[in-house]
């Protein structure tokens, strides 16, 4: 067995909450980066009981991305994990309206009252390799 220090570690993240989690959408908002995980700003504001203006003023460093509702619907409905029709029924497939999105980050997770737990897969691989 070689030295493992140079190997890439695989870390799984878990968000734990005592309240149902807000829906998360895996969406590509720009051509310069791949899909990322986003929450609807409107959902976040409702959970935080904050206005959009107060949110933007308080958390200036949190980027708010926008996407046309039709494009959002197109991408979200491709996901096998959104197979329940009711989950996307509030969105208009042909709408040109813009939706505001905020990317999931450790800061946002903490703001929403969840806790983040990381699990290094390294240990299991070593155990498997040695068994």
């Amino acid at each position, binding site marked *: 067995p070689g030295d493992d220090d140079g190997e890439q*570690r695989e870390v799984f993240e*878990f*968000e*734990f*909450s005592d309240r149902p989690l807000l829906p*998360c959408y895996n969406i590509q908002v720009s051509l310069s980066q791949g899909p990322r995980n986003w929450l609807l700003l409107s959902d976040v504001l409702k959970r935080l009981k904050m206005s959009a203006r107060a949110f933007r003023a308080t958390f200036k460093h949190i980027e708010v991305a926008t996407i046309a509702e039709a494009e959002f619907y197109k991408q979200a409905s491709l996901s096998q994990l959104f197979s*329940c029709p009711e*989950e996307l029924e509030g969105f208009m497939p042909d709408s040109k309206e813009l939706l505001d999105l905020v990317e*999931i980050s450790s800061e946002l997770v903490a703001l929403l009252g969840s806790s983040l737990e990381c699990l290094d897969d390294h240990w299991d691989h070593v155990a498997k390799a040695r068994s």
Partner: protein
Amino acid sequence: FDQSKAHFYRYDEQVSLCLERRSSLSLVGKDKIKLAQQKFVRCSARTEVRHLRRVLCRRLSLDKQQVHMLYNDKPLPDHMTMRQLWLSHWFGKAQPMVLQYVIREKSHR
């Protein structure tokens, strides 16, 4: 360890879970009760059952073999991913996917 060398799976599609405890063993201590109440979980669709098991063991300070994951009260294979589980058991249903876990007595050898 060097986090810049780690892959976090954070851009993967995420699944939303609700973990219900099935156990005759009672948890002791305020912290453990609080942790057990945090039953809503989000993780990468590539997370395997064994990862979920391990993270629960760690949060509840239990031995690795004490937690067993279940779906419909039937044991789940350790290497099944959340995506496989979702597609085979939860397709067409709303989030979160409901799983159970059972805490077994610590084995003494």
